[in-house]
């Protein structure tokens, strides 16, 4: 039971990192990204390949995974940044699907649907499984807190202010002399790097990656985490991720509560509840539990 709780805490941390990545792209810069699981997958595969096949040291592989995801983020942003949000939603969703198709079919590169196994993890084999879980709990949440702190600083900086301006009104930001495209591309790259890092940590923790783990449902989890916690706020991303894990794992025990359901029906209920939760969050509290405080300076209180 303890190791189960620890494992769930590790996943909450991974979700938190992904929510933080999405928060830069969506929360700050206002670009929808329904393909975030694609960047997570790229990070996971990059780190898995580098450590398992090329025997790179793990920290170096994690850094490389973040960089590769960021480069991909730049490419996606350059292609899509001029598009309206409507198109961006469609294109990013398609991007994640394409990543999954490539992962399933380029068998020589990715191991196909059977994936990559025996990925080395720091101290795996030396530590006992509970110790390993605890180690990763510290690593993942350590990263999440540091990244949240850094991104929090970033969002307060002039850079973050420009991103919020672009989110609110691109035209005005452009008229104010900001190079909107460059800012959007940078925001996308930073967000994608965090998503890629989350993927790399996942690969090392799980010791196994396969295309099935990168379903679009994960994207919905993260969108829910950010919407529930409060888009635009880094603490919101952390809180939302914990809530999402409580929801996905708490419903695991539904079967015991409602007798007479087939396992398939319980699975359908659990997935459906995520959808319902997102609908409720969007309807009743789109600003989230920890809403972003409007940073308005009125003339007479200006410091």
């Amino acid at each position, binding site marked *: 039971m303890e190791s189960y709780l620890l494992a769930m805490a590790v996943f909450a941390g991974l979700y938190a990192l992904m929510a933080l990545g999405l928060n830069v792209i969506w929360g700050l810069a206002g670009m*929808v990204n*329904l393909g975030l699981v694609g960047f997570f997958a790229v990070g996971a595969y990059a780190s898995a390949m580098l450590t398992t096949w090329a025997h790179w040291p793990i920290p170096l592989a994690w850094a490389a995974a973040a960089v590769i995801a960021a480069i991909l983020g730049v490419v996606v942003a350059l*292609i*899509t940044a*001029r*598009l309206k*949000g*409507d*198109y961006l*939603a*469609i*294109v990013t*969703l*398609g*991007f994640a*699907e*394409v990543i999954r*198709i490539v992962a*399933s*079919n380029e068998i020589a590169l990715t191991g196909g649907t059977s994936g990559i196994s025996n990925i080395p993890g720091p101290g795996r084999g030396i530590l006992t499984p509970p110790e390993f879980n605890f180690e990763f709990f510290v690593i993942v949440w350590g990263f999440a807190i540091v990244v949240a702190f850094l991104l929090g600083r970033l969002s307060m900086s002039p850079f973050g202010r420009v991103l919020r301006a672009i989110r609110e009104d691109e035209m005005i930001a452009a008229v104010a002399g900001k190079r909107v495209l460059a800012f959007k591309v940078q925001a996308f790259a930073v967000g994608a790097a965090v998503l890629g890092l989350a993927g790399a940590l996942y690969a090392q923790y799980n010791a196994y990656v396969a295309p099935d783990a990168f379903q679009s*449902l994960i994207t*919905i989890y993260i*969108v*829910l985490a950010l*919407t529930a916690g409060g888009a635009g706020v880094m603490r919101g991303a952390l809180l939302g991720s914990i809530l999402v894990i409580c929801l996905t794992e708490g419903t695991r025990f539904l079967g015991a509560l409602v007798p007479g359901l*087939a396992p*398939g*029906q319980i*699975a*359908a*209920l659990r*997935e*459906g509840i*995520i*959808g*319902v939760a*997102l*609908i409720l969050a*969007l*309807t009743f509290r*789109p600003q989230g539990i920890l809403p972003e405080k409007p940073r308005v300076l009125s003339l007479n209180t200006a410091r």
Partner: protein
Amino acid sequence: MILTLLQTLINGLLAGAQLAVPAIGFTTIYAVLRFPSFAVAGHMTIGAYAGYVANVTLGLPAGIALLAAFLVAGVAGVATDAGVLRRMRASGPLTVAIGSAALTIVLENVIRFGFGNDPRGYDLPVLRDWKFAGLRLGPVQVEAAGAAMLAMAILFLFLAFTRTGKMMRAVADNPMLAGLKGIDAETVARLANFIGKGLAGFGGMLVALDTSIDPLTGFRVVLSVFAAAVVGGLGSIPGAVAGAFVIGIGEEAAVLVLDPAYRTAVGFFAILLVLSLRPRGLLGERAY
């Protein structure tokens, strides 16, 4: 070689006709409500299952089952919009778009809860492919394409000649002007939802006739549907038809050179290509 190309063209046209129906549904909703509705995927699946209940459980012929697919998905579309998506409209189109993705997850799982994950098929007579000068034609695919053409013809007549159809076009063209003329935007929104989601359901059954009925029937092809609408120009109905044929033929042609698994990627690259070269799509964004 020429025979292979001709066969590819025929398959592409048949696939395109199937794709055109949900693509019209998607683009109609976009034209009137101005958000990309990911709920089209869920309603395609609903249509496929409504057709299954009509055809297999009730033993009705496939033509009637298609009508049932249209009606059930259309009514579901109006209900889910009134109950779920309409409340989000004030928060902006992207919120509604994300809400519609969540809605698809809910709908898929309602279906999964009731019918399970196992793929099902319709109760159709097994027919041999027609062979003609070395070309093969599947009777089911041909009939599905025929049904698609019929549905499209009816929609065009409706939009061109009826008062209600003109109302819808007016709102799609310029909502403010239409409002000044006393056209009730909510009525038109409901109508657009009924027709759009109904066509998604109809198209869902057409797709399921060719593949299988399962909770992911809609989601599997939804990227191709989006691609058809975007390539043709979001919000343009003739554009969606043209886009659907482009995507249909493109997907069949891709199978000639690539692994069949990359079929779905064709739509994605078509979107990127069109958006970089001609962002308004082939036929622009005019609704009709």
